């Protein structure tokens, strides 16, 4: 009987650019379902850590695993379980919100994609304008569309890089509903809105110059059958 497999875990994860270790021997483990705020000054390595965990950035040494899949051995299986939100909008400006989600639904092979897409577009308030080219939508709607793309395939883990950027209060409420307050999901979100953190986060992972200075207590003894 496997108890408490950490949703996200890192083992001496390191990323070196030339002589500088931007992420240096980082180890932590996060319980499934927990909501962790990733804090730290600019250049502390937050985005690089999120990039390493989402397999977008290749590690220099060490390892990490998400939902039991290691980035070193089966990154494809790992990516099935993560939803990613980064600085760049990561949506196609020339395609409409509907076409954007249809493409990603095919890429992720989402079952009954049409209903899922409609449900999400309605949730983020883009259903009425689903056929217009995304380029004419405001930055906030880009972020909402990106959020919808991140949760489209119902991932167990969400890796969000400053998800609040560009969102108005209604958008932030959506972020809470879809991700931060969603019990079924583990979230690791880098954020600068520190005053909101204690409202949604049940733990903090703080980085300083590539090292962990504060982390939630590691997932207790793993007993696997």
């Amino acid at each position: 009987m496997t108890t408490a497999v950490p949703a996200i875990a890192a083992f001496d994860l390191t990323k070196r650019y030339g002589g500088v270790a931007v992420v240096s021997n980082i180890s932590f483990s996060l319980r499934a379902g927990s909501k962790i705020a990733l804090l730290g000054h600019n250049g502390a390595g937050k985005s690089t850590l999120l990039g390493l965990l989402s397999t977008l950035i290749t590690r220099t040494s060490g390892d990490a695993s998400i939902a039991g899949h290691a980035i070193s051995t089966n990154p494809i299986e790992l990516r099935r379980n993560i939803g990613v939100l980064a600085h760049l909008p990561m949506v196609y400006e020339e395609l409409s919100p509907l076409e954007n989600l249809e493409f990603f639904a095919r890429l992720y092979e989402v079952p009954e994609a049409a209903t899922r897409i409609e449900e999400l577009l309605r949730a983020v308030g883009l259903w009425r304008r689903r056929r217009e080219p995304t380029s004419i939508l405001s930055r906030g709607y880009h972020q909402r569309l990106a959020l919808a793309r991140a949760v489209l395939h119902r991932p167990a883990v969400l890796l969000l890089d400053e998800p609040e950027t560009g969102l108005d209060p209604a958008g932030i409420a959506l972020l809470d509903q879809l991700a931060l307050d969603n019990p079924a999901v583990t979230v690791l979100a880098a954020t600068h809105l520190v005053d909101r953190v204690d409202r949604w986060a049940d733990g903090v992972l703080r980085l300083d110059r590539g090292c962990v200075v504060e982390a939630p207590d590691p997932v207790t003894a793993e007993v696997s059958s």
Partner: protein
Amino acid sequence: MSALWQVLVAIFWWVIHTLLEPIWNARWVALPPLTGVMMMAMIVGAVLVAPREIVEGEVQRLMYIHVPVATISYLAFFVTAVASAIFLIGRDMRWDAIARGAATVGIMLTAFALLTGAIWGKPTWGVYWSWDARLTATLVLFLIYSGYLLARAVGGPNDEQAARYAAVVGIIGYIDIPLIHFSVDWWRTLHPQRIIFAPKPALPGEMLLVLLLGFLGILFLTLWLITLRGTTEYLVQRADRVRARLDQLERA
């Protein structure tokens, strides 16, 4: 990775460590004198020992430099391709330094081949450049690996992304060689038949001997240059790493 693949990789590294390591360690001791002796023998051979070619006259003695240099430049690019492949597998930046060093040496060798070929060609065929199949192939290689260096220079000495990209160019460039030779050979050939590698050697004994000296001389020279150049690239990487480390500390 499948078990078989891991076994192969393990054997590969065992070969590298047990066989090549000692040779690699002895490089500074062995290579310079060997190169010196061989090059001396080559000069004496080319100028004095080898008989004068009746038709082409004295300038034909350039063959003892041109042919070895043109041939061994392929070895330099082979080192680049293999070092690039090892870098892509092990991601160890030292192999990137060796690949880059070998490419630089390879480009220099091809430049010498083209130059001596032109100087040899002028009195013999009346033209500096004759679009001959083999010279053209050498020129194409010169361009490909100049592109390799340009692609590598896009990033800094320790820029892994630029190193990976350049490694791909280094490997593709080498695999392209047979295709280049086929297309260029069918396209045009003026060069005298391969007098050395022709089934029956058209060269008298002494010429062959001196040519062999030339090959050995250029071979050791190339190995020595690749080691020198590789070490330089490695030191550039180390300096860049320490400098980056210093910036980080001073900025903090």
